[in-house]
């Protein structure tokens, strides 16, 4: 018997009983649903939790606060020129700026890269994310955004353009909006690469990007 058939047979023989039905996953839907999951739904139950969103607070400040807590930072950029200027301003010594967005041309466009190994010398990578998640301070990036996935992790510093209107509340909302199977790779990136492996001291730039900068810029600014 193949390993596959042997394992499936063993599993079938040993399935615990009684079988438990699949619970409904209420997801983020709030209106009219009793058990929606998400922070606004439950704000009245929040005691004085430092950093928690305020009932009347718009989403963006919460997102920015969470991103900062994860070690990232964010700036507003009015248009493409401002975004390009910001990158130049933040990374004056960068020799290789590899860009996957039209707003910031950089010194190399990702479309010219054939092999991920070519990205080992990138000082700054620039990409656009289609989705931000407020509670996690995270941005979503797929192969479609990165073109070469390694751009997200080999760049010494990463700059992510994000439309402020594309920020959702919780991970439930986020998973409701993405089609996982549509891309071979997709990552929620919350701040830069980090480690606490030596005496719990938080250090940024463990293996991936040393810093993560989100530039808040309207999608229509192109």
């Amino acid at each position, binding site marked *: 018997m193949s390993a596959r058939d042997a394992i499936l047979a063993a599993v079938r023989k040993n*399935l615990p009983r009684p079988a438990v039905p699949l619970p409904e996953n209420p997801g983020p839907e709030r209106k009219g649903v009793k058990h929606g999951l998400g922070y606004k739904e439950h704000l009245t139950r929040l005691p004085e939790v430092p950093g928690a969103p305020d009932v009347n607070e718009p989403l963006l400040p919460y997102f920015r606060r969470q991103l900062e807590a994860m070690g990232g930072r964010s700036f507003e950029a009015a248009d493409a020129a401002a975004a390009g200027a910001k990158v130049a301003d933040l990374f004056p010594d960068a020799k290789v700026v590899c860009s996957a967005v039209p707003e910031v041309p950089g010194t190399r466009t990702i479309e010219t890269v054939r092999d991920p190994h070519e990205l080992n010398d990138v000082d700054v990578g620039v990409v656009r994310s289609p989705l931000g998640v407020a509670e996690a301070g995270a941005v979503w990036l797929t192969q479609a955004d990165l073109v070469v996935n390694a751009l997200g992790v080999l760049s010494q510093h990463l700059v992510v353009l994000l439309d402020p209107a594309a920020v959702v509340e919780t991970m439930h909302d986020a998973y409701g909006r993405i089609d996982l199977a549509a891309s071979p790779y997709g990552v929620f990136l919350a701040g830069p690469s980090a480690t606490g*492996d030596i005496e719990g*001291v938080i250090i940024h730039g463990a*293996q991936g990007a040393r810093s993560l900068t989100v530039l808040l810029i309207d999608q229509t600014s192109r």
Partner: protein
Amino acid sequence: MTRPVDPEGRAARFIALEMHESTHDRLVWGMRHNRDKAVAGVPEWEDLRELASRIKDHTLTHLDHYLEEFEANAIRLGTHVHWARDAEEHNAVVYDVLAAHRVKSLIKSKSMLQEECGMTPYLQKRGIEVTESDLGERIQQLADEPPSHIVVPAIHKLRTDVAALFAEKIGTDPKDSDPHDLAEAMRQNARPKFMAADAGMTGANFAVAETGGFVVCTNEGNADIGAAVPPLHVASIGIEKLIPRARDLGIFIRMLSRSALGSPITQYTSHFHGPRRGGELHVVLVDNTRSDRLGSPDFWHVLKCIRCGACMNTCPVYRRGGGLSYGATYSGPIGVILGPGFDLSKYRELPFHSSLCGSCTEVCPVKIDISDQIYKWRRVVAAKGMLPLAKRVGMSALGATLAHPSLFHAAEATGEWALAHLPRFLLYNPLNPWGKRRELPAVPKQTFRQWYLENRRTS
């Protein structure tokens, strides 16, 4: 009968290193503290726990169905799917894939399953260079030790230990023990290995039946580099990692890092669905006693574990004795209930390496009845007559009294204070070998003994 591991002796040696013990205790308790703060920010936490628990219950009671669904969807995406009954078969399958691609060097991210299978020594013996890329895991590899914690593998080491180790192995300045410099040195050392690797290997935190993909959570992004740079990515996935739907990830991802470290999410939550452009993706679905466990009415719930480590961080015995004291791949309360299922004889001491205070059960995000399972393993061990005599008097005395419901509930009621301070009493009482080197408790030996003997008669 296999010689059992000796958790007390190992713990005693760790406790003897005063600085190590106190730093470890502080750091691990700090993670538990951060977890509490993060949980307080999610008012629907208990709803999430209940949902997570039921989704896992459901998946495990329909596991054959979800494995087949995952396999079919993964194949449709162009992933090569392999199956392995046990550790040996897993290692052989991995080696075959690597050999077919003429892999000479391999960069891997942390995988407790690959650890469980003893994969690295297996591959090294066959001429493949294997480099751990997670900082903590690499420290452990250089020190030739297993991970002492499933989330932070080198948490038992002081910065000076790491400085001495790196000085010897990768040529850093032995006097520089600044964690920033040490981490930077490892970044510089690891990057060329990522560039030169012929393959990257990862584990998986979740596998989604509905989509045929899997999720890997790291803070360093090292799994992502291993998957994005070398042309070949091989992932080992325990069959219990399945979840039914993509949207269920919302529940589990919200809980995982909050439970582990107290952050809302890991820095990288990475989803792999089929090979990347220009790459090849293989997954190995591994049983290795999981299907046996599924058939045990008392113990199958352990398969719900999402390896967050919260039970370890809260455990007074783990905090004091350190993870290496368990002498097993998995340590802490989760290790106590996993170990005996792999090898009862070898790990028969582990169920007694616990105070049964119940804190692990309280923090578990998927509601595993951890302390009940520890108690049930004690009974299994006792029923097999495997208890050494000293244990029957000393260790089980402590265990049995604390297993007593009224005491158990008293401990629960006293809450946070008790948890932070109770260990001192538990650990430094004279019946307890972990406390031997320390001050005696206020409770006189004779009284405690008499009380225990009384108690044993009535329980």
